[in-house]
């Protein structure tokens, strides 16, 4: 997968771990999941947790607006030049899986413009349970669901739930109000995912995004090792 090393043009191979100048590129982590599950809130919390130690940037994939990028800008989780919005032509899953060219352009431009980065978070537009990221675009992916979307989602499975490198069950603080059984969700997720990790989180709790941030740090340590 090092086709690009025979010449000095821009990178032609998406998954190549090195930039055209030979330096290691940023780790790319994708965050996907259904609409409203808390992807953008998780990205914002991750930025706040990691920005003091890491050089990071975010790519958002809104379906028809720039709302997610604007939310991150409004919350000032990162300086504006570190947030890029990709337009997806009504097909968010296409832009992260079948035709990743616009997203690759965005991640490469961020590193070209800002200098070497440690981490780029790529947030997908809200989609369905089958939407996963191409391995040509990200090195690892997080699938975010929430307790209010129905506690049967882990049992239903689908590529996002079963194969994502990390499954996040978000908004656990809402469980009592929507009648979701957290123990059942955790057991179903375990059943579907085997040894792959699952985090149950509430961004309103004191622990917040801590477990997910620790997982990201571990991935980054492995990437740079």
């Amino acid at each position, binding site marked *: 997968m090092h086709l690009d090393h025979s*010449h000095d043009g821009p990178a032609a191979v998406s998954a190549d771990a090195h930039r055209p100048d030979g330096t290691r590129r940023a780790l790319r982590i994708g965050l996907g999941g259904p609409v409203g599950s808390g992807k953008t809130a998780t990205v914002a919390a991750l930025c706040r947790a990691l920005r003091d130690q890491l050089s990071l940037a975010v790519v958002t994939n809104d379906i028809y607006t720039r709302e997610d990028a604007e939310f991150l800008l409004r919350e000032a989780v990162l300086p504006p030049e570190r947030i890029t919005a990709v337009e997806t032509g009504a097909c968010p899953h296409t832009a992260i899986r079948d035709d990743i060219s616009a997203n690759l352009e965005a991640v490469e431009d961020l590193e070209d413009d800002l200098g070497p980065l440690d981490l780029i978070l790529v947030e997908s537009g809200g989609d369905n349970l089958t939407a996963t990221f191409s391995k040509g675009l990200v090195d690892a992916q997080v699938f975010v669901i929430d307790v209010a979307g129905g506690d049967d989602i882990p049992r239903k499975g689908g590529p996002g739930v079963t194969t994502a490198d990390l499954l996040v069950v978000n908004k656990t603080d809402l469980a009592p109000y929507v009648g979701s059984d957290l123990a059942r969700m955790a057991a179903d997720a375990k059943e579907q995912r085997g040894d792959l990790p699952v985090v149950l989180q509430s961004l309103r709790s004191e622990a917040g995004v801590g477990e997910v941030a620790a997982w990201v740090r571990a991935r980054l340590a492995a990437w740079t090792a």
Partner: protein
Amino acid sequence: MTRAALLVLADGRFPAGGHAHSGGAEAAVKAGRITGAAGLEEFCRGRLHTSGAVSAALAAAAALGVDPVALDGAADARTPSAALRVAARKLGRQLMRAARTTWPHPELDALARQFPKGAHQPVVLGLAARAAGLGPEDAAYCSAYEGVSGPATAVVRLLSLDPFDATGVLARLAPEVDLVVRDAVDAARRAVDLGVDALPAGSAPLLEIGAEAHAAWPVRLFAS
């Protein structure tokens, strides 16, 4: 050369970023100029004979080996709307990535070095065809066809148009695509000797104006 390479390059699923663009159809739908299959057909016909004919000729000329830098300048001069120039370069860059991985070729590498942020898409398309061992007619067919198939796909999403009706529009336009391709290849062959001024310079003012308006919308489904 293999005939099937043409199918690879012309496939709507070829991962070169086109799915996020409507070819001006989103602006035309919002303005009420496309409300159904009949409007889509007129829109596509207009696009085919104006910007489509120019793109097809640029692609054919690039496939014939006309200097791509001169062709890129010719494309700039034939695209009054800044928003459309930006879109064409974005799509050119994305196509370049896909083409270089699919059909590695020193001429693609050279153009990528020359235009790291993207050359005009029809120029890259013609060079990609050349890298794939295809000829000017093939390049012109790819360009002319995607110039109408892109808006047709977009309108299916924008208006929930019956997909069979949209495909019927493309089938009815096929004989006109043949004519546009024939003229495009003729012009491209003239450009080999006479330079890029021999290429057509048709334009559709409403496409240009629509693209400028569309680029300023806060909420839209497509990038252009």
